[in-house]
């Protein structure tokens, strides 16, 4: 047995050979890029949080376009009784930048946490996320399947925390934990301009402690690296890039939850027009890193980890769901 194992390891070891001339296969990245540009990308973002925390405004600020309308007013039926809607609604837009087309789907969760009795208000959210997975699974399993299955799986969930300055509410903890088990959760403090810097630091520390205490796993995960080369075995040395990636992930985990401020209006600061909020005592510049962490969130979400979010959803969360479903099916048919 031992010799067989040794043989397989030997053939798996990568043989590095030096090239004697230019072959040209390095152009494959360009070929892939061309294909991807034609195909376009899809990103599905869900926002969860009580109404009035600036969710819609933040999404519009993140993608520099008016994608979602701020809802929030209670609707009433004929008798003047307020009706709560917990229907989950998605809205899709195609935005383009330098020839790259992104189909962005934003899923809003109105009515979350706004009632007097909020028991089970998380169920529609969990159901929606799981429905996307089961839809995808079904399409994967059919004998004649589409060449490219449209990906409606939720890639990232921005969880909005109210800037109370004290701690997480029992509802927040409950829901964050449930969602983090099936999707990527990124906690965010909405309307953080109501906290002074001191209050903000203390609040973030407190939230981090609570998240850890309750075992809530937020994205980016400390122990999951999809692109890591695992065949190196124990004692392998991480190369430069992997080390830099890990550092970046740790740096981001430090900043979480992101304290953000959103704005669709522009104000003039030092002669430049920036997105901000003008109050009687000063101007809050959304793009100023001393004022809020919007830039950090935007870079993280769109510039460094967009593909990572999609990959982790598909390779980890979806696969976990798929395994559970198929095992359950097997058990059910076996009985």
């Amino acid at each position: 047995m031992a010799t067989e194992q040794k043989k397989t390891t030997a053939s798996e070891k990568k043989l590095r050979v030096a090239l004697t001339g230019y072959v040209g296969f390095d152009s494959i990245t360009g070929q892939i890029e061309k294909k991807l540009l034609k195909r376009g990308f899809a990103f599905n973002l869900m926002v969860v949080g009580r109404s009035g925390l600036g969710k819609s405004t933040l999404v519009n600020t993140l993608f520099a376009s008016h994608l979602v309308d701020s809802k929030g007013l209670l609707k009433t039926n004929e008798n003047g009784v307020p009706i709560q809607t917990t229907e989950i609604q998605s809205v899709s837009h195609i935005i383009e930048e330098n020839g790259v087309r992104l189909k962005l789907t934003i899923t809003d969760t109105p009515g979350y946490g706004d009632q007097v009795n909020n028991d089970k208000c998380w169920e529609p959210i969990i159901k929606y996320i799981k429905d996307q997975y089961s839809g995808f699974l079904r399409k994967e399993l059919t004998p004649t399947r589409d060449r490219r299955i449209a990906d409606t799986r939720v890639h990232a969930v921005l969880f909005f925390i109210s800037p109370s300055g004290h701690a997480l509410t029992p509802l927040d903890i409950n829901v964050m934990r449930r969602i983090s088990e099936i999707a990527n959760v990124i906690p965010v403090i909405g309307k953080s301009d109501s906290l002074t810097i001191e209050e903000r630091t203390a609040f973030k520390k407190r939230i981090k402690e609570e998240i850890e205490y309750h075992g809530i796993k937020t994205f980016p995960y400390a122990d999951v690296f999809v692109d890591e080369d695992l065949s190196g075995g124990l004692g392998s040395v991480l190369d430069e890039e992997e080390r830099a990636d890990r550092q970046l992930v740790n740096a981001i985990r430090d900043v979480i939850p992101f304290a953000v401020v959103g704005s669709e209006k522009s104000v003039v600061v030092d002669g430049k027009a920036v997105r901000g909020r003008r109050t009687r005592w000063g101007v809050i510049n959304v793009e100023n890193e001393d004022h809020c962490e919007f830039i950090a969130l935007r870079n993280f979400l769109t510039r460094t980890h967009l593909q990572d979010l999609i990959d982790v959803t598909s390779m980890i969360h979806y696969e976990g769901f798929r395994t559970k479903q198929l095992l359950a099916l097997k058990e059910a048919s076996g009985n």
Partner: protein
Amino acid sequence: SSGSGKSTFVNTLCESPVILRKDHLDAEKAAAPKTINITPTTIEMDEDGLKLSLTVVDTPGFGDNINNEPAFADILEYIEHQYEEILSQESRIKRNPRFQDNRVHVLLYFVQPTGHGLREMDIEFMRTLGPRVNVIPVISKADSMTPQELNAFKKKVMEDISHYKIPIYDFPYDEDEDDEETIEENTELRGLLPFSVIGSEDEIVLNGRRVRCRQYPWGVVEVDNSKHCDFSKLRYMLLSSHLHDVKDITHEVLYESWRTEKLSKEGHHDDDEEEVVID
């Protein structure tokens, strides 16, 4: 709810740390469902020899739980309990002249600055308690909104209040009886509803004077500056100009309507009251 600035507001109003902010020291305790803990604190304020005994009843934990229905009943019970004490005092054969009036004269309801109008909980709560106590809606942490947002929000809240017929203390005046000054003052205060407040226990020296404020990287918000928030007007109204009015309304209108309801529901008391027969 927790974190809406209630304790800070009270401390700012009384200019001293009356209510200690309870920071739950560990995550474990904080995760347990909280029962609402109604705690009255009394402070004596002295001005030019005139003593004012101010009792503040805080309701920490209100609105924090997943199911908030039981909290309403607790608060209503507290208020009605004070009325019951008064009723039983009044009905005594020998009344105690030194009996302390613990009735709640004003209930400040802290509305979250969402920008979207009232939430279901706000509406239900104020509707339940409005008939028993003077409710004044207050927008806490008002420094999270720009002046335009604040005005739009105030308008929306007042529209919701009138739409859902929520009874609040809106500085009533009598067009015929009251003098012009009173009418003007009340109209102005009514127009400011709901009051936007900012609380702070920190002071800094600004332009040579000591100012209570909140410091941000983009500016300094002053608590007592009426351009920044309505705190000073609210304070003046509560502790000075309308102090007597809210007490009057509590005694003459709210208490009386509760008393009528209670007595007509139960018929007459058998034990306490004795029938006075006039020959």
